[in-house]
């Protein structure tokens, strides 16, 4: 025994004494595969919680939990129409910790979507896409889309009513894309309707294609942060010195503490609130109302008001504009400053107020008073219910932009803050309307 201990003493795997001086702390970070994702030292302001809110790190934590719980779930799941639902029921009722694992996977998947989106908002608001960070901004957006696809493909797997109809509606949307839409949806579904082929395809995409892509892109995303010179920071006057702190212990300590708190909270929540499972999928009878997953309710709400092609083009154009931001807003002097300036904050609040008033108003007006196809019967619905609302929406966005520039004599950067805020809050409000205010036959109802 004692002999063994001494022979192990010289092995490099033996725990090293904790580094105590600045130099050995930096060395410890640089020589460790995982810690090496971090720089060896960080400017003090970059560590402030209210600067990053730790959203990238939190998203990474959820991704890690998702991979671990997902691997376990794969051992107990059957990707066949006959057995998928029963395998979930078995998991929920018979397998030790099955319900907890599924719940953890479900909730961390939803949380990942939320934190990734908030991360995008954070990076937008403090200009983290500026000064040569265009590539990482694009990778980040791709990662967000990947997370959405993850959630969407995972949605089908329990093969319950919600799963079946959300995916039926989602893939039918693709059919409206001219020329390629039908081919893509045919490939995804492996046929014309959601059935065995679709379930198998979605399973393969969810457990192999997407995780592989996600891990590669995440690694690229982290590496790119280092290559771009660390997280964004405000420009400093010449000669101004910023204090630098070593990653051990200052950053690692925060990360470990936050991770432990979040894991504890997630486990407590997941243990209390199991993942939902509706009735077995019934291709003959959609539930009424048939709602998509909550993160698609904003899009579904748009679908109630516009031709599907327009309802896809509008978010598509907005997404394209957001992706192109590093080329659209090239002012670099306001990097690292929340809302670009004090005035930017006022403009952002104006954007929130605008969306709070305009979006519910437009939804009500379209629901009760305006019926474009009926008012313009001589036009095809593609124009009356598609092109016209699409152009009106885009025109509205342009008016808001010029209004903000005029009223606040705002810079281009600041007006874009207002526009971005308006768009994200509109999405938020549309989602709320879809989730809480739509009843049977998707009619407007009060939630209480």
């Amino acid at each position: 025994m004692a002999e063994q201990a001494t022979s192990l003493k010289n092995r490099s795997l033996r725990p090293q004494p904790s580094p105590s001086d600045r130099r050995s702390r930096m060395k410890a970070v640089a020589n460790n595969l995982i810690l090496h994702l971090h720089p060896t030292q960080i400017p003090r302001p970059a560590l402030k919680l209210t600067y990053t809110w730790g959203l990238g790190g939190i998203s990474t934590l959820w991704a890690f939990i998702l991979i671990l719980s997902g691997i376990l779930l794969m051992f107990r799941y059957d990707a066949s129409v006959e057995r998928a639902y029963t395998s979930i029921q078995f998991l929920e009722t018979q397998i030790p910790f099955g319900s907890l694992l599924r719940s953890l996977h479900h909730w961390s998947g939803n949380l990942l979507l939320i934190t990734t989106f908030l991360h995008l908002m954070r990076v937008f608001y403090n200009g983290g896409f500026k000064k040569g960070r265009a590539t990482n901004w694009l990778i980040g957006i791709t990662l967000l889309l990947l997370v959405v696809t993850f959630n969407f493909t995972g949605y089908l797997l329990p093969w319950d009513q919600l799963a079946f109809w959300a995916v039926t509606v989602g893939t039918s949307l693709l059919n409206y894309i001219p020329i390629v839409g039908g081919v893509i949806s045919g490939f995804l579904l492996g046929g014309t309707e959601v059935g065995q082929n679709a379930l198998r395809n979605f399973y393969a995409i969810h457990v192999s294609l997407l995780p592989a892509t996600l891990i590669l892109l995440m690694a690229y995303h982290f590496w790119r942060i280092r290559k771009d010179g660390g997280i964004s920071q405000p420009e400093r006057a010449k000669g101004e010195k910023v204090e630098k702190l070593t990653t051990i212990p200052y950053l690692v300590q925060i990360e470990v503490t936050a991770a432990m708190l979040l894991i504890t909270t997630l486990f407590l929540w997941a243990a209390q609130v199991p993942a939902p499972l509706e009735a077995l999928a019934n291709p003959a009878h959609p539930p009424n109302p048939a709602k998509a997953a909550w993160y698609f309710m904003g899009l579904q709400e748009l679908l109630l008001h516009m031709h599907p092609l327009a309802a896809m083009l509008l978010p598509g154009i907005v997404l394209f504009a957001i992706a192109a931001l590093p080329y659209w807003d090239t002012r670099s002097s306001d990097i690292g400053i929340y809302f670009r300036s004090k005035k930017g904050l006022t403009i952002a609040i104006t954007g929130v107020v605008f969306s709070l008033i305009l979006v519910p108003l437009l939804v009500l007006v379209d629901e009760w008073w305006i019926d474009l196809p009926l008012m313009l019967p001589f036009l095809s619905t593609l124009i009356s219910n598609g092109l016209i609302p699409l152009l009106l929406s885009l025109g509205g966005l342009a008016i808001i932009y010029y209004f903000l520039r005029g009223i606040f004599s705002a810079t281009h950067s600041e007006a874009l803050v207002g526009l971005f805020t308006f768009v994200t809050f509109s999405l938020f409000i549309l989602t709320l309307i879809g989730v809480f205010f739509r009843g049977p036959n998707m009619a407007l109802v009060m939630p209480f």
Partner: protein
Amino acid sequence: MTQQTTQTDTSKMTRRNFLQLGAGALGLLALLEMGGASLAFLAPRKIEGEFGGVVKAGDVDSFPAGSVTEFPDGRFFLIRADDGGFLTVYRRCTHLGCSVSWEADKNQFVCPCHASQFDFYGSVENPPAPRALDTFAIEIEDGQVVVDTAKPQTRDEFEANQLVYT
């Protein structure tokens, strides 16, 4: 210096250029082959016995005039008009693919997903559905209604010539 060499090199085909070009072309070909093979591998395939065959709906006389009968396995509704003409409509809503249900008291097909409504003949009464419910071909053989569900036929709205008579 190096730049100059590259410039002169590209202007005429040296052995090195030829080999580089050839390697590039072969690499591209290999990529295309792999892509094509993957596409062929992943292409949707029809499973035998799945939806899309010929359905014998039943005796002509078993469907009274002015009735709508649902065939869940065939994914269609068989409509018999007041004048005795037959029409089948595919239950898939033309908006986003939810299954419509027949509500006899309202004399309407209703889609619960986005509230589209269709009349007795499947024409749109209330959008967002962009066109009438799709139809399937019907033949009357020996007093039997036979429906071919292989290919849904699209139409903008109901017209009298879509009805099939005995």
